[in-house]
């Protein structure tokens, strides 16, 4: 046999040795990638571009706040000079028809009532400054007709929008997350008409309008989905609420109105209805709370639905202290005995006092103290 020969290469075989530059380029690329992956995986969490798992071991860490929670600011303003009243009440006289049945108030009367009520606590110009973006939160939870007492009175909403715009506000937003279908609720309660006539803009709960809100000190909603989209860049917040009987919590008035801004599976909170309502003053510190006592839902609340459930009242209340005005409305509008006052009012006052910082204006349930109420009969 001949000497051992090199194996014969296939004629098509083309030998292309790697040159040095290519080799180093490839090594550099490989180490670069390995280095990047290693950095991302092992660098401490607070270093930039680190992908290290921040969460503690255990199941609880899975319930993390994925979207970064936002916080609301305090929308209250200082009291006007010389005004010590927290609750401004305006009354008017009703006209009656031949059969003795009370007639609806004319729109002008309602407008004057609202004006007068706000004037008693300082006047709208004190609360709204030029260029403010104002958010109005009415109660539009159901698709009831306007005078059935289940939703806010559209005339009052419209008048509030006009007042706020006249006081120099840049933009007025009106928002609510209703229980029933949003478009139907806004339309059938005539509030979308009121918003259009008044010059505001309605915000309906789209799927990307909710974000997690952090409320320090809250018992149930310390971090919860909140209808945040209309609140971006807002300076002042006004709540407008009817006075309603409620089968579970005995009364739904100014404090419960803020329930309409929660998202997610908020119906769970009915298992601790006092706990959730008493969290709202911590969540929302509005500029003004308006209580509409012209169509008072006395029974079958909160949905109402029949005109026989409604008592024709004659007050509109503007309040800086939601607990006191709710307590007043409970006794004087719903005509209930003060011993049966809903527990959430008292619990809210205590909770707020516990979580408040020094110098904060606290809630005070006792509206009988002299000077807290200023009434005007127009």
């Amino acid at each position: 046999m001949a000497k051992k020969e090199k194996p014969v290469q296939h004629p098509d075989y083309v030998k292309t040795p790697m040159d040095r530059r290519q080799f180093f380029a490839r090594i550099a690329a490989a180490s670069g990638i390995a280095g990047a992956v290693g950095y991302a995986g092992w660098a401490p969490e607070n270093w930039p571009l680190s992908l290290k798992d921040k969460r503690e071991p255990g199941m609880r860490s899975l319930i993390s706040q994925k979207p970064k929670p936002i916080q609301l600011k305090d929308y209250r303003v200082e009291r006007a000079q010389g005004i010590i009243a927290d609750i401004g009440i305006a009354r008017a006289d009703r006209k009656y028809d031949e059969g003795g049945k009370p007639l609806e108030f004319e729109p002008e009367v309602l407008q004057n009532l609202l004006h007068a009520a706000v004037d008693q606590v300082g006047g709208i110009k004190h609360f709204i400054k030029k260029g403010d973006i104002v958010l109005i939160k009415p109660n539009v939870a159901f698709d009831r007709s306007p005078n059935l007492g289940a939703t806010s009175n559209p005339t009052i909403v419209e008048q509030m929008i006009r007042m706020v715009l006249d006081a120099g506000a840049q933009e007025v937003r009106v928002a609510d997350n209703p229980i029933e279908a949003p478009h139907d609720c806004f339309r059938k309660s005539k509030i979308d008409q009121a918003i259009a006539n008044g010059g505001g803009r309605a915000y309906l709960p789209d799927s990307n309008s909710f974000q997690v809100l952090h409320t320090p000190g809250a018992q149930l909603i310390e971090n919860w989905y909140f209808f945040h989209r209309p609140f971006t860049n807002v300076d002042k917040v006004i709540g407008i609420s009817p006075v309603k009987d409620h089968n579970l919590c005995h009364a739904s008035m100014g404090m419960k109105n803020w329930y309409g801004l929660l998202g997610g599976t908020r119906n769970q909170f009915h298992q601790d209805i006092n706990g959730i309502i008493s969290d709202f003053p911590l969540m929302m510190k509005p500029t003004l709370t308006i209580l509409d006592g012209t169509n008072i839902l006395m029974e079958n609340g909160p949905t109402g639905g029949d005109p026989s459930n409604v008592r024709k009242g004659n007050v509109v209340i503007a309040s800086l202290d939601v607990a006191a005005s709710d307590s007043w409305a409970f006794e004087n509008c719903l005509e209930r005995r003060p011993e049966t006052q809903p527990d959430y009012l008292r619990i809210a006052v205590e909770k707020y006092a516990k979580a408040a910082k020094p110098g904060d204006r606290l809630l005070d349930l006792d509206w009988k103290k002299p000077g807290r109420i200023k009434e005007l009969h127009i």
Partner: protein
Amino acid sequence: MSEAVKLKPDGTRVRKFLRITNVRLLSQVFFFAVFVLSVWLTFTDRLEGYPVSRILEFDPLVMIANILSTHYIYRYLGWGLLILGVTLLFGRVFCNWICPYGTLHQFIGWLFNTRNGKLRIDSNRYRGMFYFKYAILIVMLIMAAFGSLQIGLLDPICLMYRTFATAIAPAVDMGLVEASDAAKAMQIETTVFDALKFKPGVESRVFQGSFWIGLMIVALVGANVVIPRFFCRTLCPLGALLGVISRFSLFRINRDVHKCTDCNLCLTRCEGAADPMGQVRLSECFSCMNCIDDCPEDALSFTMFGLDTKQVVAAPDISRRKVVFAALSGVLAYPFIRNHGVNTDFNFQGSLIRPPGSVEESDFLRKCIKCDQCINACPTNVLQPATWQEGGIEALWTPVMKFTIGHCQLKCTLCSEVCPTGAIRRITVEEKLGKGTYEEVGPIRLGTAFFNTGRCLPHAMEIPCVVCEEVCPTSPKAIQTKDMEVKDVYGNVVVLNKPFMVPDLCIGCGICETECPIKDERAVYVTAVGENRGTHRRMLLKHRTYADQAQA
């Protein structure tokens, strides 16, 4: 764009621009836009007075099938005669000038068609399998005559409305939500994305069966890449009906044999596979006019004068044998499906809850064309296309209410307004609530709510909760409570409001089921029994009233 056509003395740029195929394109775009606009407008306060179901009402197959099943013409369905008249004059212009589904097929087929030359020409030749649509038509018409309306499964207009409502609109909305989020993240203040949404101001919608409906349209439209206008040529029952009628059409494609050189270029873009190069098949020709554009000899024209009677095949190409077999299938299908027994009045699914204003179930199945316009219009997303579960194959994709997703809004009657065939007959809010002239009859009841007390928090677990009573919209409420104090296992004395139903007052709106916090299997749920659209599924014989006060 191309090298300028050498136009003879009659031709100018303007004329080229105004030629018939451009006008056809305009017509296609117009009707497709009207269709998409109709779907977009069908939602709560956007609806106002727009005639959003009009394209369905123009559909002659819907008219004929409804006449066969119900023996009368509902509301605007008579407009189908207009299309039939146009077909008798001009042939199957509907398929290529009006039908939005045809436009979609043609568009996708044109966009992704990479065939050239001979391959392209061969793809447009007539195939034997194109007879199948006539078989489908026969089966469906026979079933309709017996009383089970199934045309909605394949009718192109119904299919388009249904697909857009349940699959495409939610997908587009999802994309717009992402765009809106991106704009917010980039600090751009804009509301254009929200204004464009199909369903603004509500949470993202879900529709059961959306996957299959979406798959169906992707498959059928995707088939255009393999066989151009596959659905229109092979499966469309409306096309088949128009094809049967267009054999009598006045105007048709006419080939001048003296000018023709048999180059077959007319097949390059023939939509109907109607063999213009030979004996034109009247039943297949879509009057798309593409062949006229493609003939270099100007041999083709669309006319009623000087017709060459030899160069035409009028009738559909389906043999008598196939017709008989199709008829037989139709005759057998009906009893087999009906005797399946899921839609009788003694064996029906409790989940088959129909929209308010619906007629009795046996009539409903004679009328519903599964267009899903009602599902489109519904503001709370409670209406869903039925799956096999609720009504078997016969009721597939008809509207049912699923109260775990939404509830029936008390004062809303939009579904009854947009229904083109009267499966949901037109009602006013007065009739729905049982007020005004309807006080004697009472409100429309969709079903009755029942409590599963083993899962209810106050009944079974000593935990206070009464959301169901809170949201019940009737006055007085149909959910009342027995209040009692109990001492729970932790020694606390709590007040439990234990709810119970008052079925005389319940209208089956389902908001109690939607709001119940036991989200996996609700402790209060609504079933179809007690509905009062007919008498067969009634639960209570009479409704109780207040006791006679004088006896007290």
